[in-house]
């Protein structure tokens, strides 16, 4: 069922995003490797979310290129990736209908849609909530729904913008477990977070941003034990800087 040839790595070159003369993003080169857990770190306003949105194609860059390795049509590229936003977007429908809608937009037939929705809800422990209006769920449940909804599309590449922010430790843990399941499934994950604990446990690769620039891109273990740049060092030691 699953396509084995991946689009990845995703290669970002000379990416610049400017608005009103201000440089919001400046990334000479970045690589999102296949099947890796990429974690983007950096202080507030470093351009982490913007980088995700730009890679996902929601924000057009001022200049530069974002290219998948295996060339495909824009629509195909879009179908192979998904994104979960910081504030999960919950349609004003039942939990099940939220899945059905996303699958319909991806062009999945009606019967298939029902099957995939039911399966995904069962896999991520959402079955008991299937008929609830999505917007009355708790913050943690909404985030789980948003991630499961993205997962139901079987993307190769999944972007997540601060998936555990404003969640209690239990809910954060559940999200982390879901991300592990997706990682085991072979999904390439790119997420931003302020939770250094999560980053330490979870990341394969760290992309460290500061003032819109990608300052350091390295193996997670090396990043946490021996950061190469003074900015990363200061960040890990919780020293204020801007």
């Amino acid at each position, binding site marked *: 069922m699953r396509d084995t040839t991946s689009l990845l790595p995703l290669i970002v070159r000379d990416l610049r995003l400017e608005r009103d003369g201000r440089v919001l993003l400046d990334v000479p080169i970045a690589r999102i490797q296949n099947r890796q857990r990429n974690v983007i770190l950096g202080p507030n306003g470093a351009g982490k979310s913007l980088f995700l*949105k730009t890679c*996902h194609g*929601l924000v057009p860059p001022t200049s530069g290129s974002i290219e998948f390795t295996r060339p495909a049509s824009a*629509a195909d590229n*879009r*179908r192979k990736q*998904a*994104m979960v*936003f910081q504030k999960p*977007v*919950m*349609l*004003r*429908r039942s939990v099940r209908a939220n899945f059905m*809608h*996303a699958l319909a*937009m*991806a062009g999945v037939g009606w019967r298939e849609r029902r099957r995939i929705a039911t399966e995904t809800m069962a896999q991520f422990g959402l079955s008991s909530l299937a008929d609830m*209006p*999505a*917007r*009355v769920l708790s913050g943690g449940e909404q985030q789980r729904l948003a991630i499961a909804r993205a997962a139901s599309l079987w993307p190769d590449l999944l972007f997540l913008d601060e998936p555990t922010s404003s969640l209690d430790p239990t809910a954060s843990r559940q999200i982390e477990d879901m991300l592990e399941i997706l990682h085991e499934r072979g999904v390439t994950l790119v997420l931003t977070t302020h939770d250094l604990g999560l980053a330490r446990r979870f990341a394969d690769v760290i992309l460290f941003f500061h003032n819109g620039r990608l300052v350091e891109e390295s193996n997670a273990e090396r990043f946490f034990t021996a950061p190469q740049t003074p900015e990363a060092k200061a960040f890990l030691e919780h020293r204020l800087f801007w």
Partner: protein
Amino acid sequence: MQQDAISTASILSLLLGDGGHFLGIIFLSLQVTITAVTCAGLVGLPLGAALALSRFPGRTVIIVLVNTMMGFPPVVAGLAIFLLLSRSGPLGDMGLLFTPKAMMIAQFVLVLPIIVALTRQTIEDLWTEYQDHLTSLGAGRLRSIPTLLWDARFSLVTTLLAGLGRASAEVGAILIVGGNIAGFTRTMTTSIALETSKGDLPLAMALGVVLMSLTLAINSLAYGISRVGARFSGKS
């Protein structure tokens, strides 16, 4: 005092009694109003949504114009339709003047701006919230319209009921283009205007009671729907 008693009795007899004539008036009113609002909804909901999502030069001007049209004086609308439909007017050959269809057209024209303007506002707010998600799913603006209309369904029903309220209470336009012909284009509001000036207060008051009850029903419905909607939008 005596006159009051008579009035009350005659109102009751009209409300409860055989009055085929009386029911005919109510039926015609409902027919005209509901047809006009249904058509205005079919045109206005997609139009309002399209206006919310489109970006073109002059869009702001159109939005201001539509908003202004919400307060269009019914008698002026009536006059405009009258000129269009009159024998010597551009649409005179269709012979629509002084028919229920002319009244439907007049009310359609009055209700359409309300539906377009309110729909535009509702859909634009919802789009701000949904834009990233829908774009991420690969739905363009055009394909997003059905999703947005469905997710705004509770607000939009309220919008339609607002249109229904305006249409059912309106007298100026339909009086001009319908002509208030007994048994043919006489509605509740035009009858009330006529009977009051004739001095047949019981009939006017009976119709007033029915009209008020309908308005009450419409508003209760709108309130009930907004309560259900609040649940779906997670506000309750």
